[in-house]
Protein backbone atom coordinates (compact mmCIF):
# COMPACT_ATOMS: atom_id res chain seq x y z
CA UNK A 1 0.00 0.00 0.00
CA UNK A 2 1.23 3.44 -0.91
CA UNK A 3 0.51 4.73 2.58
CA UNK A 4 2.77 2.15 4.14
CA UNK A 5 5.46 2.76 1.53
CA UNK A 6 5.35 6.48 2.17
CA UNK A 7 5.45 6.05 5.93
CA UNK A 8 8.36 3.64 5.74
CA UNK A 9 10.19 5.92 3.35
CA UNK A 10 9.70 8.89 5.68
CA UNK A 11 10.84 6.87 8.68
CA UNK A 12 13.91 5.63 6.80
CA UNK A 13 14.69 9.15 5.66
CA UNK A 14 14.48 10.43 9.24
CA UNK A 15 16.73 7.61 10.38
CA UNK A 16 19.26 8.38 7.66
CA UNK A 17 19.41 12.07 8.50
CA UNK A 18 19.74 11.20 12.19
CA UNK A 19 22.48 8.74 11.49
CA UNK A 20 24.39 11.15 9.26
CA UNK A 21 24.07 13.90 11.83
CA UNK A 22 25.70 11.68 14.42
CA UNK A 23 28.58 11.75 11.93
CA UNK A 24 30.48 8.73 13.13
CA UNK A 25 30.09 6.88 9.85
CA UNK A 26 32.95 6.49 7.41
CA UNK A 27 32.64 8.64 4.32
CA UNK A 28 31.84 5.91 1.82
CA UNK A 29 29.03 4.57 4.02
CA UNK A 30 27.73 8.09 4.55
CA UNK A 31 27.68 8.62 0.82
CA UNK A 32 25.80 5.38 0.33
CA UNK A 33 22.99 6.22 2.74
CA UNK A 34 23.04 9.84 1.59
CA UNK A 35 22.22 8.65 -1.90
CA UNK A 36 19.50 6.45 -0.47
CA UNK A 37 18.14 9.46 1.41
CA UNK A 38 18.06 11.61 -1.69
CA UNK A 39 16.27 8.84 -3.55
CA UNK A 40 13.75 8.47 -0.70
CA UNK A 41 13.03 12.18 -0.44
CA UNK A 42 12.42 12.35 -4.20
CA UNK A 43 10.11 9.35 -4.06
CA UNK A 44 8.21 10.78 -1.12
CA UNK A 45 7.67 14.12 -2.83
CA UNK A 46 6.58 12.25 -5.93
CA UNK A 47 4.03 10.24 -3.98
CA UNK A 48 2.68 13.44 -2.43
CA UNK A 49 2.48 15.19 -5.77
CA UNK A 50 0.86 12.29 -7.52
CA UNK A 51 -1.97 11.90 -5.02
CA UNK A 52 -5.25 13.22 -6.29
CA UNK A 53 -8.09 14.47 -4.18
CA UNK A 54 -11.25 12.47 -4.54
CA UNK A 55 -14.24 11.88 -2.36
CA UNK A 56 -16.23 8.81 -3.30
CA UNK A 57 -19.20 6.92 -2.01
CA UNK A 58 -19.51 3.16 -1.79
CA UNK A 59 -23.10 2.03 -2.19
CA UNK A 60 -24.92 -1.22 -2.57
CA UNK A 61 -27.76 -1.34 -5.06
CA UNK A 62 -31.00 -3.28 -4.78
CA UNK A 63 -29.55 -6.63 -5.89
CA UNK A 64 -26.67 -6.36 -3.47
CA UNK A 65 -24.04 -5.19 -5.99
CA UNK A 66 -21.58 -2.64 -4.65
CA UNK A 67 -20.38 0.31 -6.68
CA UNK A 68 -18.31 3.39 -6.06
CA UNK A 69 -19.19 6.82 -7.41
CA UNK A 70 -18.06 10.34 -6.83
CA UNK A 71 -19.52 12.07 -3.80
CA UNK A 72 -21.68 15.12 -4.00
CA UNK A 73 -23.33 16.74 -1.01
CA UNK A 74 -26.70 15.72 -2.46
CA UNK A 75 -25.88 12.05 -2.02
CA UNK A 76 -27.88 11.80 1.18
CA UNK A 77 -30.46 9.89 -0.81
CA UNK A 78 -27.95 7.07 -1.18
CA UNK A 79 -28.24 6.17 2.43
CA UNK A 80 -29.69 2.71 2.67
CA UNK A 81 -33.07 2.46 4.19
CA UNK A 82 -33.81 -0.14 6.79
Amino acid at each position, binding site marked *: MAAVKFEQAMARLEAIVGELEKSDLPLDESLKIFEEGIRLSKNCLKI*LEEAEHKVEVLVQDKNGKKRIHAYSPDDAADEPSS
Partner: protein
Amino acid sequence: MTGLLRTSIEERFSDVWLEGELSNLRAPGSGHVYCTLKDKTSQIRAVLFRSTAVRLRFALQEGLQVIVRGRLTVYEPRGEYQIVLDTVEPKGIGALQLAFEQLKERLATEGLFDQDRKKSIPAFPRTVGVVTSLTGAAIRDILAVLRRRWPTLHILIVPVQVQGESAGRQIAEALTALNHLGFVDVIIVGRGGGSLEDLWSFNEEIVVRAIAASHVPVVSAVGHEIDVTLADFVADLRAPTPSAAAEAVVPVLAETVERLRELKVRLGQVMLRHCAFERRRLDAGIRGVTDVRFRLQEAAQRTDDMVDRLREMVQQLLAAGRERVHGVQRDLSGLNPILAIKQGLATVPQLSKRLEGQMGMMLAQHRHRIHATLAQQYPESLGDSWTWLQYSSNGPGWSNSPSSERRGGWTGVGGSIGKRAIELHCHAGV
Protein backbone atom coordinates in the same frame (compact mmCIF):
# COMPACT_ATOMS: atom_id res chain seq x y z
CA MET B 1 -63.12 -23.67 40.12
CA THR B 2 -59.67 -22.91 38.72
CA GLY B 3 -61.31 -21.38 35.68
CA LEU B 4 -63.47 -19.15 37.88
CA LEU B 5 -60.44 -18.06 39.89
CA ARG B 6 -58.54 -17.35 36.70
CA THR B 7 -61.27 -15.13 35.31
CA SER B 8 -61.58 -13.35 38.60
CA ILE B 9 -57.83 -12.80 38.98
CA GLU B 10 -57.31 -11.71 35.38
CA GLU B 11 -60.04 -9.12 35.72
CA ARG B 12 -58.85 -7.91 39.06
CA PHE B 13 -55.06 -7.79 38.28
CA SER B 14 -54.88 -6.94 34.57
CA ASP B 15 -52.12 -4.33 34.92
CA VAL B 16 -49.82 -4.46 37.95
CA TRP B 17 -46.35 -3.12 38.81
CA LEU B 18 -44.12 -5.19 41.03
CA GLU B 19 -40.63 -4.80 42.38
CA GLY B 20 -38.43 -7.69 43.42
CA GLU B 21 -35.40 -9.85 42.82
CA LEU B 22 -35.13 -12.36 40.00
CA SER B 23 -34.52 -15.98 40.96
CA ASN B 24 -34.97 -19.49 39.61
CA LEU B 25 -34.35 -18.24 36.08
CA ARG B 26 -35.09 -20.83 33.38
CA ALA B 27 -34.95 -20.33 29.62
CA PRO B 28 -35.94 -23.52 27.82
CA GLY B 29 -35.74 -23.95 24.04
CA SER B 30 -39.17 -22.45 23.49
CA GLY B 31 -37.68 -18.99 24.01
CA HIS B 32 -40.03 -18.21 26.91
CA VAL B 33 -38.35 -17.29 30.14
CA TYR B 34 -39.59 -18.49 33.54
CA CYS B 35 -38.54 -17.14 36.89
CA THR B 36 -39.58 -16.24 40.37
CA LEU B 37 -39.89 -12.70 41.68
CA LYS B 38 -39.33 -12.37 45.34
CA ASP B 39 -38.89 -9.83 48.05
CA LYS B 40 -38.15 -10.25 51.73
CA THR B 41 -41.53 -11.66 52.62
CA SER B 42 -43.10 -13.23 49.57
CA GLN B 43 -42.64 -14.55 46.05
CA ILE B 44 -44.57 -14.98 42.82
CA ARG B 45 -43.99 -17.03 39.69
CA ALA B 46 -43.36 -14.99 36.54
CA VAL B 47 -43.22 -15.76 32.84
CA LEU B 48 -41.76 -13.76 29.99
CA PHE B 49 -43.03 -14.94 26.66
CA ARG B 50 -40.62 -15.11 23.74
CA SER B 51 -42.04 -12.07 21.94
CA THR B 52 -41.33 -9.96 24.98
CA ALA B 53 -38.04 -11.65 25.87
CA VAL B 54 -36.34 -10.83 22.51
CA ARG B 55 -37.15 -7.17 22.94
CA LEU B 56 -35.16 -7.00 26.14
CA ARG B 57 -31.83 -5.19 25.61
CA PHE B 58 -30.22 -6.58 28.65
CA ALA B 59 -29.92 -10.13 29.89
CA LEU B 60 -31.95 -11.34 32.84
CA GLN B 61 -29.73 -12.45 35.66
CA GLU B 62 -30.26 -14.22 38.97
CA GLY B 63 -30.50 -11.77 41.84
CA LEU B 64 -31.17 -8.78 39.56
CA GLN B 65 -33.44 -6.22 41.19
CA VAL B 66 -36.15 -5.38 38.70
CA ILE B 67 -39.34 -3.42 38.33
CA VAL B 68 -41.86 -5.29 36.21
CA ARG B 69 -45.20 -4.58 34.71
CA GLY B 70 -47.66 -7.32 33.71
CA ARG B 71 -50.90 -9.05 34.31
CA LEU B 72 -51.81 -11.87 36.66
CA THR B 73 -53.15 -15.13 35.36
CA VAL B 74 -53.61 -18.73 36.47
CA TYR B 75 -51.88 -21.66 34.82
CA GLU B 76 -54.73 -24.09 35.00
CA PRO B 77 -52.82 -27.41 34.46
CA ARG B 78 -50.98 -26.77 37.69
CA GLY B 79 -53.43 -24.52 39.40
CA GLU B 80 -50.77 -21.92 39.94
CA TYR B 81 -51.12 -18.20 39.58
CA GLN B 82 -48.36 -16.24 37.91
CA ILE B 83 -47.57 -12.87 36.42
CA VAL B 84 -47.06 -12.56 32.67
CA LEU B 85 -44.46 -9.84 32.21
CA ASP B 86 -44.74 -7.13 29.54
CA THR B 87 -41.90 -4.95 30.73
CA VAL B 88 -38.84 -5.65 32.78
CA GLU B 89 -36.62 -2.76 33.86
CA PRO B 90 -33.57 -3.08 36.01
CA LYS B 91 -33.98 -1.16 39.24
CA GLY B 92 -31.68 1.85 39.77
CA ILE B 93 -30.18 2.00 36.25
CA GLY B 94 -31.78 2.01 32.83
CA ALA B 95 -32.16 -1.09 30.77
CA LEU B 96 -29.78 0.22 28.14
CA GLN B 97 -27.22 1.03 30.73
CA LEU B 98 -27.48 -2.43 32.14
CA ALA B 99 -27.30 -3.97 28.70
CA PHE B 100 -24.23 -1.87 28.04
CA GLU B 101 -22.56 -3.03 31.21
CA GLN B 102 -23.45 -6.63 30.57
CA LEU B 103 -22.21 -6.71 26.98
CA LYS B 104 -19.13 -4.77 27.94
CA GLU B 105 -18.28 -7.29 30.58
CA ARG B 106 -18.88 -10.22 28.28
CA LEU B 107 -16.80 -8.83 25.42
CA ALA B 108 -14.08 -7.75 27.81
CA THR B 109 -13.91 -11.30 29.12
CA GLU B 110 -13.40 -12.40 25.50
CA GLY B 111 -10.49 -10.01 25.28
CA LEU B 112 -11.97 -7.83 22.54
CA PHE B 113 -10.94 -4.63 24.27
CA ASP B 114 -7.38 -5.70 25.04
CA GLN B 115 -4.73 -3.15 24.26
CA ASP B 116 -2.51 -5.65 22.49
CA ARG B 117 -5.27 -6.21 19.92
CA LYS B 118 -5.09 -2.61 18.83
CA LYS B 119 -3.57 -1.84 15.46
CA SER B 120 -1.54 1.29 14.96
CA ILE B 121 -3.02 4.04 12.86
CA PRO B 122 -0.96 4.67 9.70
CA ALA B 123 0.82 8.01 9.81
CA PHE B 124 0.14 8.86 6.18
CA PRO B 125 -3.04 7.23 4.90
CA ARG B 126 -3.78 7.57 1.23
CA THR B 127 -7.34 6.35 1.38
CA VAL B 128 -9.61 6.96 4.37
CA GLY B 129 -12.89 5.08 4.69
CA VAL B 130 -15.73 6.80 6.50
CA VAL B 131 -18.72 4.88 7.84
CA THR B 132 -21.46 7.28 8.84
CA SER B 133 -24.65 8.89 7.71
CA LEU B 134 -24.56 11.28 4.78
CA THR B 135 -27.21 13.42 6.40
CA GLY B 136 -25.62 14.16 9.72
CA ALA B 137 -23.22 16.86 10.84
CA ALA B 138 -20.53 14.24 11.38
CA ILE B 139 -19.79 13.69 7.67
CA ARG B 140 -19.57 17.44 7.03
CA ASP B 141 -17.15 17.88 9.92
CA ILE B 142 -15.05 14.92 8.88
CA LEU B 143 -14.85 15.96 5.22
CA ALA B 144 -14.02 19.54 6.13
CA VAL B 145 -11.16 18.56 8.43
CA LEU B 146 -9.75 15.90 6.10
CA ARG B 147 -9.84 18.24 3.12
CA ARG B 148 -8.23 21.07 5.06
CA ARG B 149 -5.41 18.94 6.43
CA TRP B 150 -4.63 16.76 3.45
CA PRO B 151 -6.18 18.23 0.30
CA THR B 152 -5.15 15.33 -1.92
CA LEU B 153 -6.63 12.61 0.26
CA HIS B 154 -8.78 9.86 -1.19
CA ILE B 155 -11.92 9.58 0.90
CA LEU B 156 -14.38 6.75 0.53
CA ILE B 157 -17.68 7.13 2.34
CA VAL B 158 -20.02 4.22 3.06
CA PRO B 159 -23.39 5.75 3.88
CA VAL B 160 -25.22 4.00 6.71
CA GLN B 161 -28.03 4.69 9.10
CA VAL B 162 -26.53 5.52 12.45
CA GLN B 163 -29.59 4.90 14.57
CA GLY B 164 -32.59 2.65 14.47
CA GLU B 165 -33.22 -1.02 14.05
CA SER B 166 -30.96 -1.80 11.09
CA ALA B 167 -28.19 0.69 11.91
CA GLY B 168 -25.98 -1.86 13.67
CA ARG B 169 -26.14 -4.34 10.81
CA GLN B 170 -25.46 -1.62 8.22
CA ILE B 171 -22.48 -0.36 10.12
CA ALA B 172 -21.07 -3.88 10.45
CA GLU B 173 -21.59 -4.57 6.74
CA ALA B 174 -19.96 -1.28 5.79
CA LEU B 175 -16.89 -2.17 7.81
CA THR B 176 -16.67 -5.55 6.14
CA ALA B 177 -17.09 -4.01 2.68
CA LEU B 178 -14.29 -1.50 3.24
CA ASN B 179 -12.03 -4.31 4.44
CA HIS B 180 -12.77 -6.28 1.28
CA LEU B 181 -11.72 -3.40 -0.97
CA GLY B 182 -8.13 -3.88 0.14
CA PHE B 183 -6.88 -0.34 -0.52
CA VAL B 184 -8.36 1.46 2.47
CA ASP B 185 -5.70 2.52 4.98
CA VAL B 186 -7.87 3.57 7.90
CA ILE B 187 -11.60 3.74 8.70
CA ILE B 188 -13.50 6.34 10.68
CA VAL B 189 -16.77 5.05 12.07
CA GLY B 190 -19.11 7.30 13.98
CA ARG B 191 -21.88 9.82 14.20
CA GLY B 192 -22.72 13.07 15.87
CA GLY B 193 -24.01 13.48 19.38
CA GLY B 194 -27.34 12.16 20.67
CA SER B 195 -29.04 10.39 23.53
CA LEU B 196 -27.91 7.04 24.81
CA GLU B 197 -30.74 5.59 22.74
CA ASP B 198 -29.52 7.43 19.64
CA LEU B 199 -26.01 6.14 20.06
CA TRP B 200 -27.18 2.66 20.86
CA SER B 201 -26.19 1.11 17.53
CA PHE B 202 -22.56 1.67 18.47
CA ASN B 203 -23.07 -0.51 21.52
CA GLU B 204 -24.45 -3.40 19.54
CA GLU B 205 -22.53 -6.60 19.58
CA ILE B 206 -22.59 -6.93 15.79
CA VAL B 207 -20.87 -3.53 15.46
CA VAL B 208 -18.34 -4.25 18.18
CA ARG B 209 -17.46 -7.57 16.58
CA ALA B 210 -17.20 -6.04 13.10
CA ILE B 211 -14.76 -3.44 14.40
CA ALA B 212 -12.76 -6.12 16.20
CA ALA B 213 -12.62 -8.20 13.01
CA SER B 214 -11.47 -5.33 10.79
CA HIS B 215 -7.96 -5.71 9.38
CA VAL B 216 -7.96 -2.02 8.57
CA PRO B 217 -7.39 0.12 11.67
CA VAL B 218 -10.62 1.70 12.91
CA VAL B 219 -11.03 5.06 14.61
CA SER B 220 -14.31 5.51 16.47
CA ALA B 221 -15.97 8.88 16.74
CA VAL B 222 -19.33 8.59 18.38
CA GLY B 223 -21.19 11.57 19.77
CA HIS B 224 -19.45 13.99 22.03
CA GLU B 225 -16.53 13.65 24.34
CA ILE B 226 -18.67 12.41 27.24
CA ASP B 227 -20.37 9.69 25.21
CA VAL B 228 -18.66 6.38 25.48
CA THR B 229 -19.82 3.40 23.44
CA LEU B 230 -18.56 -0.14 23.12
CA ALA B 231 -17.39 0.80 19.62
CA ASP B 232 -15.00 3.19 21.38
CA PHE B 233 -13.68 0.40 23.56
CA VAL B 234 -13.01 -1.94 20.69
CA ALA B 235 -11.73 0.62 18.17
CA ASP B 236 -7.99 0.94 17.58
CA LEU B 237 -8.28 4.61 18.45
CA ARG B 238 -11.09 6.48 20.14
CA ALA B 239 -11.66 10.03 19.02
CA PRO B 240 -13.91 12.20 21.17
CA THR B 241 -15.70 13.68 18.14
CA PRO B 242 -15.87 13.11 14.36
CA SER B 243 -13.70 16.20 13.76
CA ALA B 244 -11.13 14.89 16.19
CA ALA B 245 -11.16 11.55 14.38
CA ALA B 246 -10.40 13.31 11.09
CA GLU B 247 -7.54 15.20 12.74
CA ALA B 248 -6.22 11.98 14.19
CA VAL B 249 -6.06 10.05 10.92
CA VAL B 250 -4.27 12.53 8.67
CA PRO B 251 -1.36 14.87 9.27
CA VAL B 252 -1.27 18.27 7.64
CA LEU B 253 -0.01 17.87 4.09
CA ALA B 254 1.75 21.24 4.07
CA GLU B 255 3.60 20.28 7.26
CA THR B 256 4.54 16.94 5.80
CA VAL B 257 5.88 18.53 2.64
CA GLU B 258 7.73 21.05 4.80
CA ARG B 259 9.19 18.27 6.94
CA LEU B 260 10.25 16.40 3.83
CA ARG B 261 11.94 19.50 2.44
CA GLU B 262 13.63 20.14 5.75
CA LEU B 263 14.90 16.56 5.85
CA LYS B 264 16.25 16.96 2.34
CA VAL B 265 18.00 20.18 3.28
CA ARG B 266 19.45 18.62 6.44
CA LEU B 267 20.54 15.64 4.39
CA GLY B 268 22.42 17.92 1.99
CA GLN B 269 23.90 20.03 4.78
CA VAL B 270 25.10 17.13 6.85
CA MET B 271 26.68 15.51 3.81
CA LEU B 272 28.35 18.75 2.86
CA ARG B 273 29.70 19.11 6.40
CA HIS B 274 30.90 15.56 6.34
CA CYS B 275 32.63 16.07 3.00
CA ALA B 276 34.20 19.31 4.19
CA PHE B 277 35.42 17.56 7.31
CA GLU B 278 36.90 14.73 5.29
CA ARG B 279 38.43 17.32 2.93
CA ARG B 280 40.11 19.04 5.85
CA ARG B 281 41.37 15.71 7.07
CA LEU B 282 42.73 14.96 3.61
CA ASP B 283 44.41 18.37 3.44
CA ALA B 284 45.95 17.79 6.84
CA GLY B 285 47.16 14.45 5.60
CA ILE B 286 48.65 16.00 2.49
CA ARG B 287 50.30 18.66 4.64
CA GLY B 288 51.71 15.93 6.80
CA VAL B 289 53.11 14.14 3.79
CA THR B 290 54.52 17.39 2.45
CA ASP B 291 56.09 18.08 5.82
CA VAL B 292 57.65 14.67 5.82
CA ARG B 293 58.95 15.25 2.30
CA PHE B 294 60.29 18.65 3.32
CA ARG B 295 61.92 17.18 6.40
CA LEU B 296 63.35 14.43 4.25
CA GLN B 297 64.78 16.99 1.86
CA GLU B 298 66.17 18.92 4.75
CA ALA B 299 67.69 15.80 6.20
CA ALA B 300 69.13 14.90 2.79
CA GLN B 301 70.62 18.36 2.53
CA ARG B 302 72.07 18.11 6.00
CA THR B 303 73.46 14.74 5.11
CA ASP B 304 75.04 16.19 1.99
CA ASP B 305 76.53 19.00 4.05
CA MET B 306 77.91 16.59 6.54
CA VAL B 307 79.32 14.37 3.82
CA ASP B 308 80.95 17.43 2.27
CA ARG B 309 82.38 18.49 5.56
CA LEU B 310 83.54 14.98 6.22
CA ARG B 311 85.19 14.84 2.83
CA GLU B 312 86.89 18.16 3.50
CA MET B 313 88.08 16.97 6.84
CA VAL B 314 89.37 13.76 5.35
CA GLN B 315 91.12 15.72 2.64
CA GLN B 316 92.63 18.05 5.19
CA LEU B 317 93.77 15.08 7.20
CA LEU B 318 95.14 13.48 4.07
CA ALA B 319 96.87 16.69 3.07
CA ALA B 320 98.35 17.02 6.52
CA GLY B 321 99.46 13.43 6.38
CA ARG B 322 100.86 13.89 2.94
CA GLU B 323 102.64 16.98 4.10
CA ARG B 324 104.16 15.08 6.95
CA VAL B 325 105.21 12.28 4.64
CA HIS B 326 106.75 14.82 2.28
CA GLY B 327 108.54 16.45 5.15
CA VAL B 328 109.89 13.18 6.27
CA GLN B 329 110.74 12.37 2.67
CA ARG B 330 112.52 15.66 2.37
CA ASP B 331 114.41 14.99 5.55
CA LEU B 332 115.21 11.54 4.36
CA SER B 333 116.30 12.68 0.96
CA GLY B 334 118.78 15.05 2.61
CA LEU B 335 120.42 11.99 4.00
CA ASN B 336 120.42 10.12 0.72
CA PRO B 337 123.94 8.69 0.16
CA ILE B 338 123.60 8.64 -3.58
CA LEU B 339 122.83 12.32 -3.54
CA ALA B 340 125.79 12.94 -1.34
CA ILE B 341 127.89 10.96 -3.77
CA LYS B 342 126.44 12.84 -6.69
CA GLN B 343 127.18 16.14 -5.00
CA GLY B 344 130.57 14.84 -4.11
CA LEU B 345 131.12 13.77 -7.66
CA ALA B 346 130.07 17.15 -8.92
CA THR B 347 132.95 18.69 -7.02
CA VAL B 348 135.41 16.23 -8.49
CA PRO B 349 136.19 18.15 -11.70
CA GLN B 350 136.72 21.33 -9.70
CA LEU B 351 138.89 19.58 -7.22
CA SER B 352 140.80 17.83 -9.95
CA LYS B 353 141.32 21.20 -11.64
CA ARG B 354 142.51 22.65 -8.39
CA LEU B 355 144.66 19.59 -7.85
CA GLU B 356 146.11 19.94 -11.36
CA GLY B 357 146.78 23.58 -10.79
CA GLN B 358 148.27 22.86 -7.44
CA MET B 359 150.36 20.04 -8.77
CA GLY B 360 151.41 22.11 -11.73
CA MET B 361 152.60 24.78 -9.43
CA MET B 362 154.36 22.26 -7.18
CA LEU B 363 155.94 20.60 -10.23
CA ALA B 364 157.08 23.89 -11.53
CA GLN B 365 158.58 24.76 -8.16
CA HIS B 366 160.21 21.35 -7.84
CA ARG B 367 161.46 21.55 -11.42
CA HIS B 368 162.74 24.92 -10.76
CA ARG B 369 164.50 23.75 -7.63
CA ILE B 370 165.79 20.71 -9.42
CA HIS B 371 167.10 22.83 -12.28
CA ALA B 372 168.60 25.16 -9.84
CA THR B 373 170.28 22.33 -7.99
CA LEU B 374 171.33 20.67 -11.26
CA ALA B 375 172.64 23.89 -12.53
CA GLN B 376 174.73 24.24 -9.46
CA GLN B 377 176.11 20.64 -9.52
CA TYR B 378 175.95 19.82 -13.25
CA PRO B 379 176.16 23.06 -15.08
CA GLU B 380 177.05 21.35 -18.52
CA SER B 381 174.58 18.72 -19.18
CA LEU B 382 171.70 17.09 -17.85
CA GLY B 383 172.51 13.61 -19.39
CA ASP B 384 170.23 11.23 -21.21
CA SER B 385 168.19 10.37 -18.36
CA TRP B 386 165.06 12.17 -17.97
CA THR B 387 162.01 11.89 -15.86
CA TRP B 388 158.82 11.11 -17.38
CA LEU B 389 155.77 12.08 -15.59
CA GLN B 390 152.49 11.09 -16.82
CA TYR B 391 148.96 11.02 -15.73
CA SER B 392 146.71 8.19 -16.74
CA SER B 393 143.01 8.61 -16.97
CA ASN B 394 142.10 4.98 -17.45
CA GLY B 395 140.49 4.74 -14.10
CA PRO B 396 139.57 6.82 -11.24
CA GLY B 397 142.40 7.89 -9.29
CA TRP B 398 145.84 8.51 -10.02
CA SER B 399 148.25 6.01 -11.55
CA ASN B 400 151.96 6.05 -12.03
CA SER B 401 151.81 3.28 -14.54
CA PRO B 402 153.50 4.10 -17.81
CA SER B 403 151.30 5.69 -20.40
CA SER B 404 150.76 4.15 -23.79
CA GLU B 405 151.41 7.45 -25.30
CA ARG B 406 154.99 8.08 -25.30
CA ARG B 407 156.84 10.94 -26.53
CA GLY B 408 159.99 10.45 -28.23
CA GLY B 409 162.79 10.69 -25.84
CA TRP B 410 164.38 13.74 -24.92
CA THR B 411 167.06 14.67 -27.23
CA GLY B 412 169.65 16.69 -25.75
CA VAL B 413 168.53 19.83 -24.29
CA GLY B 414 171.24 21.61 -25.71
CA GLY B 415 172.68 22.68 -22.61
CA SER B 416 169.53 24.17 -21.15
CA ILE B 417 166.91 22.44 -19.13
CA GLY B 418 164.32 24.78 -20.48
CA LYS B 419 164.68 23.16 -23.87
CA ARG B 420 163.50 19.88 -22.60
CA ALA B 421 159.78 19.30 -22.82
CA ILE B 422 157.83 17.66 -20.17
CA GLU B 423 154.37 16.75 -21.06
CA LEU B 424 151.70 16.10 -18.69
CA HIS B 425 148.62 14.29 -19.78
CA CYS B 426 145.66 14.57 -17.72
CA HIS B 427 142.47 12.87 -18.56
CA ALA B 428 139.45 13.60 -16.55
CA GLY B 429 137.66 10.42 -15.68
CA VAL B 430 134.29 12.04 -15.56
